[in-house]
């Protein structure tokens, strides 16, 4: 079978396929959110579902995130397995109470007597001039608060496999998908938004980072778009004889410490790249883990690349300036190698 032509899907189709397969498997799975019915989700995550499963299991909601995410929680407590879509992660503030004080805490506060098998999926990311209220990732905002698994897959393969895992998980999972990696016709056409996706159902674990590229000179930890940029940077660095190891974090909570530490023990250098705000963000957590657990392995100060603590500006010249990208990664690594 290895010779068969690989089945290629866009990110959004991979996600929607996972949802469809789980809806077929389990009558309790249903989806609700804004414009997820006929429209198929603004970022295509529910494309084709209403046609297959009807409006009883694919529910367009009013613009009432507190009510419908809260309703998802209430239904999950009664044995349903809802998938709620928060259209943009940027809207979290109108419903964070339901997400954080309830979805994430009820299992714990009930001493494990109430389980909330639900998925909150949401679109993250910028780079297309959607400005300060529609371009954030807010990775750390979610990952900081215990009680939710928080994942952010980077490839169509992982989008499908991790969505399947998320739906089957008996815990609340925040599933962040990156707009630019959905492979939508109206966005920048990126190669990495299309990839091999087997038709049959499969799972990818929710707690394992992925070593996307092996290398011996420096470890670059990224997530979602930043992983792909790190890969681009790694190719360019290889041309200069620097072999970077690229880790796709995939999961923010729990974070896969072992894979990070193992890599740093090999490369002795660490660059962390994040599309979230810099302070109190993912780059801080990764740096802190290493400074606690592998301090003596480091042969150079850790470098953090992230949004420099400003809201995301609209104008593309400004947005380009604040977003990390391959150039900045290459530069950071080279600087680090020079310093050593």
């Amino acid at each position, binding site marked *: 079978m290895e010779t068969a032509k690989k089945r290629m899907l866009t990110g959004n189709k991979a996600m929607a396929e996972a949802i469809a397969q789980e809806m077929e498997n389990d009558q309790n799975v249903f989806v609700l959110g804004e414009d997820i019915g006929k429209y198929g989700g603004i970022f295509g995550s529910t494309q084709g579902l209403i046609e297959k499963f009807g409006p009883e299991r694919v529910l367009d909601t009013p613009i009432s995130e507190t*009510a419908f995410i809260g309703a998802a929680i209430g239904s999950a407590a009664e044995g349903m397995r809802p998938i709620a879509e928060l259209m943009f992660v940027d809207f979290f503030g109108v419903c964070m109470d339901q997400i954080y004080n309830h979805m994430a805490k009820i299992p714990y506060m009930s*001493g*494990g007597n109430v389980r909330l098998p639900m998925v909150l999926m949401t679109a993250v990311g910028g780079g297309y001039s959607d400005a300060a209220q529609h371009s954030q990732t807010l990775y750390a905002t979610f990952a900081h608060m215990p009680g939710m698994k928080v994942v952010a897959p980077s490839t169509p393969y992982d989008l499908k496999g991790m969505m399947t895992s998320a739906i089957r998980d008996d815990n609340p999972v925040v599933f962040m998908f990156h707009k630019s990696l959905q492979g939508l016709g109206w966005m920048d056409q990126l190669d990495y938004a299309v990839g091999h996706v087997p038709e049959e159902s499969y799972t990818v674990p929710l707690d394992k980072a992925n070593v996307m590229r092996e290398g011996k000179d420096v470890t670059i930890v990224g997530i979602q778009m930043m992983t792909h940029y790190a890969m681009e940077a790694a190719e360019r660095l290889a041309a200069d004889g620097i072999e970077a190891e690229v880790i796709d974090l995939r999961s923010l909570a729990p974070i896969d410490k072992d894979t990070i530490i193992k890599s740093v023990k090999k490369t002795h250098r660490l660059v962390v790249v994040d599309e979230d705000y810099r302070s109190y963000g993912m780059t801080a957590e990764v740096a802190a883990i290493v400074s606690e657990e592998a301090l003596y392995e480091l042969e150079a100060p850790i470098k953090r690349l992230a949004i420099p603590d400003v809201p995301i500006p609209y104008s593309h010249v400004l947005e380009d300036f604040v977003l990390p990208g391959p150039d900045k990664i290459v530069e950071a690594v080279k600087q680090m190698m020079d310093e050593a």
Partner: protein
Amino acid sequence: MFEEKQPAVSVDKLTWMYEQMVKIRYYEDQMVEAYTEGKSPVFNIGEGPVPGEMHLATGQEPAAAGMMVHLTKDDTVTAPHRPHHHAIAKGVDLKKMTAEIFGKESGLGKGKGGHMHLFDPEVKFSCGGIVAAGIPHAVGAAMANKMKGKDWVAVAFIGEGAANAGAFHESLNLAALWNLPLIVVVEDNSYGISVPKTASTSVESNDLRASAYGVAGAYVKDNDPIAMYKASEEAVNRARNGQGPTIIEIQTYRFLGHFQGDPELYRDKDEVPGLRARDPIMKLRQQLADAEKMSEQELEEIETRAKKEVDEAYQFARDSDYPKPEAALNDVFTS
């Protein structure tokens, strides 16, 4: 218009309600005591067998009893930060509930939740400390009931202060739109902590807000158990028959402070004695004695039974062990 003659409420139901109300009252009275332990001569909220905030429902029994008499364990109830009366009337395991409030391993949440966070999935009861946040959960339960093709209903209890939170509006619109078996009971005890209703609510009562969603509204005056019974019966029937949501507002009485330790400087010293004079439990007892011809002995039997149950629950709680400290790390996720 003529006054429709209402069918009388059966003695059984009234007796059940009376027993619940007595049980609730006695439970709360005991809690006043338990809560005070370790907090005198100097009040320190963190001390004693029952630390933390404590919101008691003394005086608010009719709302819980008058609604719960129509529900079974398949119907869902969500309650707010002042949840004991609802929990008791819904049939929450009283021992485990009390143990939870005492922070014990044998509690509903193994000591992790406490008085504001009681979860008993056996009788579909939950509550929480965030104002109005339980309404969406009830919407979700109602949705699940509908999806499962069951005639189970979901009831969200809130205070009159909570009706001004966004979650109220979003939830009622959603439930009305989807014609869900949801009932929202607004317990108007005149205050949200210290803020009187006139300083929080732009209309007289929240049943008036029913028209903003095209749902039914009902108002129960004077904390009247029987009027609450009737309004609830209609609402529950409506919900079970697929005729959509209802908002019930009941005028009720908060005999105690917002929480234990509340100096209550914001209300008149005469207010509570006035309310206590109209004690709904005394009223129902009188009605049972007068109209239903229940003897003093029968009434006392009910009272004794209710108190015994409560005493046993407190004893169970006190006798139970505290959780092991390391247990704090469990139950975040299930595997």
